[in-house]
């Protein structure tokens, strides 16, 4: 449903304020939805037309039950698209609608300007519908059960992408050529000797050195032959290129990968994106939009948005406070070497260079950062102290999560660890021709946290469906290097030596 005339006028007003604030956004199309419609669309990831899959039904049940029991309510939803689509809950009171509309314009600005969104399609609504149509047509041709079962396998590995690879220009796949054909051996490269007199030769070209060089060349040659030449972080891309799939399967996998890349920046910038939107809605509401009698309702709603339940951090809260902190620091010139080196408490407290660069700085930050770099660059000990942040961990002895540290470095390391790679383990394709038998060898780059073993095994099973040859995963189980294998019939587990320095534990 379209906006009511009153809301439409309001939208224009808020849009004008947003532009005055310097926000630069895609135009936004607002839709009014009932709670059930909004639950449905939210369950579908924001897109009214997605491919058919039970996971959307599962999400719908969760949202519906939460809403029915009054536990959670979706106020707003906004889609990264040009124009942006935003859904407003029809039953929201006017003050909430104002807040949400302001919030949405800031999101739209973030989508348009943050560099990690640069690769995402701005015609996502059409593309998702297109994906849906393709998968539905495969379902009709090959049977719903079969397509769904394959989709389950693909979704089980949808996190195996390289979120930082979006700038890489990949070579177009070579058409009609088998990729496993070995290229003819090049002329064996010889180790270059340094010219020397005979009697000096064994000093100028010591045998050990020549041997080492020879080995190096040998390794390089081997590496060239290996597929992939370098460990491949974008496992999905690798599988699309090399796995023996039927054309429809390849396409389904490609769809899953494409959507994973589309959604990736949203969780890579969760804190920033929500912080940015919250920053601007609270500014616009308090400076322009709230009438006198609405201010209490606004404050009530806003405090709900930024409330931190115990044991969690709320991205809205951390994000907005960090943006405010940055603005203040750059307004007062509290950054740079002079500030860092100053340890006079009194001087620091009164530090104010009247630089007033805060506004420019937060716009710059919203353009170039993601959550990891945002926290890395702008989280300060003062901020941790003020917002009472702590690190926690699971204590197997008590069976509970316990506070483990209030030390700034620990907290920062923990937070960055949780955010890195979207909180997903790093998995690489190491060798597609393991044991020279076409078996797939994956490696988990261990950084101190082990995988959930039962899940890892079942994921291998799904990978085997796609690769159709045995699959292996090098990882750590119970503190030891292990190779988990699945050959299509049974799981195996063998101990392997993994060089310690490669797997230096974070903790």
């Amino acid at each position, binding site marked *: *449903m*379209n906006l009511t005339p009153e809301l439409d006028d309001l939208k224009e007003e808020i849009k004008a304020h947003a532009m005055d604030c310097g926000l630069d956004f895609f135009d936004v199309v607002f*839709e009014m939805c009932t709670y059930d*419609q909004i639950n*449905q669309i939210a*369950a579908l990831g924001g897109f009214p*037309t997605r491919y*058919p*899959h*039970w*996971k*959307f*039904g*599962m999400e719908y*049940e*969760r949202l519906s*039950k939460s809403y029915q*029991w*009054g*536990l*959670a309510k*979706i106020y707003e939803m906004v889609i990264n698209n040009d124009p942006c689509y935003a859904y407003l809950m029809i039953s929201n009171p006017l003050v909430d609608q104002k807040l949400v509309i302001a919030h949405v314009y800031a999101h739209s600005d973030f989508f348009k300007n943050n560099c990690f969104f640069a690769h995402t399609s701005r015609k996502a609504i059409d593309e998702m519908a297109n994906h849906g149509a393709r998968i539905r047509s495969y379902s009709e041709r090959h049977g719903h059960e079969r397509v769904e079962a394959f989709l*389950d396998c693909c979704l*089980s590995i949808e996190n*195996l992408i390289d979120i930082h690879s979006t700038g890489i220009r990949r070579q177009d796949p070579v058409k009609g050529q088998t990729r496993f054909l070995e290229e003819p051996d090049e002329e064996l490269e010889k180790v270059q000797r340094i010219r020397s007199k005979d009697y000096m030769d064994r000093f100028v070209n010591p045998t050990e050195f020549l041997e080492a060089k020879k080995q190096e060349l040998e390794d390089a040659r081997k590496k060239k032959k290996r597929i992939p030449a370098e460990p491949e972080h974008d496992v999905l891309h690798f599988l699309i290129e090399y796995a023996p799939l039927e054309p429809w399967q390849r396409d389904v996998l490609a769809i899953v990968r494409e959507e994973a890349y589309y959604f990736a920046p949203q969780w890579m910038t969760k804190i920033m994106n929500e912080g940015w939107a919250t920053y601007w809605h609270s500014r616009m509401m308090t400076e322009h939009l709230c009438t006198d009698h609405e201010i209490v309702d606004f404050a009530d709603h806003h405090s709900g*948005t930024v409330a*931190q*339940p*115990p*044991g*969690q*951090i709320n991205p809205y809260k951390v994000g907005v406070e960090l943006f405010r902190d940055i603005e203040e620091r750059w307004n007062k010139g509290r950054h740079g070497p002079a500030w860092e080196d100053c340890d006079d408490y009194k001087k620091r407290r009164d530090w104010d260079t009247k630089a007033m660069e805060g506004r420019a700085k937060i716009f710059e930050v919203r353009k170039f950062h993601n959550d990891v770099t945002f926290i890395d660059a702008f989280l300060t000990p003062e901020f941790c102290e003020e917002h*009472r*942040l*702590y*690190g926690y*961990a*699971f204590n*197997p002895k*008590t069976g509970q*999560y*316990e*506070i*483990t*540290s209030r030390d700034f470095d620990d*907290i920062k390391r923990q*937070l960055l660890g*949780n955010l890195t790679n979207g909180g997903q*383990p790093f*998995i690489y394709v190491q060798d597609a021709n393991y044991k020279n038998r076409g078996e797939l060898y994956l490696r*988990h780059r261990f950084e101190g946290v*082990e*995988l*959930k073993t*039962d*899940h*890892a095994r079942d*994921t291998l*099973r*799904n990978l085997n469906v796609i690769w159709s040859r045995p699959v292996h995963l090098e990882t750590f189980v119970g503190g030891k290097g292990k190779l988990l294998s699945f050959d299509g019939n049974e799981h195996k587990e063998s101990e392997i030596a993994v060089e310690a320095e490669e797997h230096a534990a974070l903790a």
Partner: protein
Amino acid sequence: MNERDFALQQNVSKIERDHGRFRQIVRGRIKKDLRKYMTRGELIGKKGKDLVSIPLPQIELPRFRFGKNQGGVGAGEGEVGDPLGGQEQEGEGKGEAGERPGEHVLEVDLTLEELAKILGEELELPNILPKGRRTVLAEKERYTSIRRQGPESLRHFKRTYVRALRRQIAMGMYDPKNPRIIPIKEDKRFKSWKVTFVPESNAVIFYMMDVSGSMGDEQKELVRTTAFWIDTWLRSQYRTIESRYITHDAAAREVDQETFYRTRESGGTAISTAYRLCANVIEKLYSPLDWNIYCFHFSDGDNLLSDNEHCFRILKEELLPNVNLFCYGQVRSLYGSGEFKRKLDDAMEADNLITADIRSKEEIYDAIKVFLGKGK
């Protein structure tokens, strides 16, 4: 309806299909291999003062993901070493999350209707077609009409509001900039009832049980469980249902539900006494023309040998012609000969006579399927 509304509408049926498929997976009807990833999650909600647990099954597809020792960052008070209290929850969406589980958490379990529906789906039970005549007229009051007078508690808010709005617009008192609608007495509308007569199918269930010495607690447990499921199913099929309970050893008597499951008699067994009593009650109170009649008899199969012929005669002449279904369930006991079922199977054959063995709890499932699988 514009184009976008249409898209939204279509989307409704789409999510229903996805949701239906998810429910089927949860119930284990399809894709059984996915059930092992099912987590029995719950939401903690509030109902009045009580905290309630709302079951929320979720299926987590396997992934390469981190195990439990990951840790995280939180905010709030507390010393190093303090437990966080409660499990880590995913912080998703905004708005206030649910209350933490307290002392008194009630399960919001399935309603009996939902249970019956699941039972029906699991056992592929056909819906019952009640016998032809729906002669009994039930008087029903439904609040479907509107009056100008009535108590405030029945005021129809929307109608009242609309009347007031109409009046104010007609009188030129309505200001869209400041829309204040104040109903006066003439605007008020009240809900009112109409009496309608709805033909209904009525049903009565007779539960008969052997309580002779050979029926122990274990046997009664089997009977109780079976009867519960039968009851649940039949209640989902009929609006009104009556249950009658008959126990027998060498003589039969009609009892209430409590006594039915509790009593333990001793002595011999004459099944025909129960059938006799049942037939008498039907004749007196439940005209087969108006009632759908179900009889379930449970025993360990031990009967006075000379009584068998008598049983078969009552069944053939008085019970079977009048009832929708006569089911005999034979539970195994240490002492019972288990002969009655065989004799009954040999002696008679009728479309609405069904027998089943219930030797253990596992067999209840099959027995119910046999009993109710005909859709009678």
